[in-house]
């Protein structure tokens, strides 16, 4: 029991850090690297399945990206331990990597992650990434930074401090301007939107 309590404390601490500011997020990532139940476990799993250390790094990266998104959007509710959940995502990612390399696989051991939460549903596909990167490239560096902070739920006060704006109002105006710029770019490229419409079904 004390172990479980400790694990819960660690889990909450990590989840809070992921939902925190950039410094806290980096600390959380660092903890993923140092916790033997997380990074090292993923590496061990991939290697035991015949993958290379480079595959292991890729699997870890993709898993962390999915997990990070799930935590920030409240999809991960802490119903299972963070380590168990993360390992289940990593297994999915490993299978996705193998599928990319056209190797058959068995999904029987993946019951821990419900089908509605499957990382495949949450990942942005490679095709779409090309489109999105094109749209990102249309924005300036400042807007990219601003919208990244906005997506991380930074308050206008924090954005003002990070970007050295004179006031919170200026920060809000800048965010609004960048969002408008992006939305216009999206609407000017309906071919990009059509991919999204179909894939969201």
């Amino acid at each position, binding site marked *: 029991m004390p172990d479980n309590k400790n694990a819960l404390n660690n889990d909450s601490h990590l989840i809070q850090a992921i939902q925190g500011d950039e410094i806290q997020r980096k600390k959380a990532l660092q903890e993923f690297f140092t916790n033997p139940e997380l990074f090292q476990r993923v590496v061990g799993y991939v290697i035991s399945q015949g993958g290379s250390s480079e595959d292991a790094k890729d699997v870890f990266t993709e898993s962390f990206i999915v997990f990070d998104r799930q935590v920030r959007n409240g999809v991960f509710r802490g119903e299972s331990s963070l380590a168990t959940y993360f390992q289940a995502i990593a297994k999915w990612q490993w299978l996705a990597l193998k599928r990319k390399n056209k190797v058959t696989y068995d999904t029987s051991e993946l019951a821990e992650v419900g089908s509605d939460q499957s990382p495949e549903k949450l990942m942005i596909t*490679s095709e779409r990434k090309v489109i999105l990167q094109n*749209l990102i490239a249309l924005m300036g560096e400042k807007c990219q930074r601003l919208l990244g902070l906005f*997506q991380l739920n930074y308050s206008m006060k924090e954005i003002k401090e990070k970007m050295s704006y004179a006031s919170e109002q200026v920060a809000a105006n800048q965010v609004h301007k960048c969002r408008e710029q992006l939305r216009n770019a999206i609407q000017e490229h309906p071919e990009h*939107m059509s991919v999204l419409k179909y894939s969201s079904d």
Partner: protein
Amino acid sequence: MNDNQKGKIESYVNGSMDAASRSAFEAELRENPKLANETAVFKTEWEIREMLIENQLRNDIDAMYAQYQTQSVAAEKPRKKNLWWLALIIALGLVGTIYTLTLKDKVEVQPENNNQQQGGYADEQIDETPTELPENTGQEGITAEVEAPIEKTETSAPAQTPVQKVKLDLSALALAAYESPEGLLASRGSSSSENYDKAMKAFIARNYREAVNLLKTLPEDEEQEALALRAHASFKSSDFSGAIQDFQALKDGGIYRRDAEWYGLLARMAVKQGSRDIWKAELEKMANNPSHPYNKKAGKLLSNF
């Protein structure tokens, strides 16, 4: 569009909406094209914002992974050093054998000395040659002879260890400083070359080797762009010599010249091609040029020298 609808769109897009509400919302989407269009725009915007976070995360993970690898290598080194103890044991064995042989000679000579002593030789000779009790003298002799090499070896080994532990691996730092340029490369949009487009898709899907293979022959009208893409794909697939060659070609001129200076240097550092002084001089040149797009990054890397 009211706030309630905006809230619904957001929770639908980010996946936090429950299954029942999701079905209801999807039914609404089918009946309301305006709402469907607004949702599609929001979803694209949301995904782009997520991609911005993802790009940052990838860079952070690459940097931490490089750091992790450096630490792993540093942790491996002391283990390798344990071999010195094996060498030491062998050396001790050899010294012991030599001493035993010497002692054997001494012991063989001893009776003569004792006989000489007994025979009334001078006292000062006994003081100078402490061989009255051969066993005791022999032990003292072993301690003196054996301890000297132990002390010598022990003092030299720990002196090396901390130096290697704190020494920064510039190669790993160079890898950590590399930032994937998907945004930069994708800025060109679609191309007239089918292979270039395919290679770009392969690069973004992290199939770097495939990207390199697709660009074995460079398209004539987009040679510079394709060369830049191939250079980065080579770098990402750890084919540093290929990357060095392509970045070198880009350095000779064109719009990617500055990028090639920075990334080419990182590739050379990654495989330790050139000397520390040469890398330092190149970094200083970039860091001291305020108009160089990589001057801040160069300055940061330079601070580790």
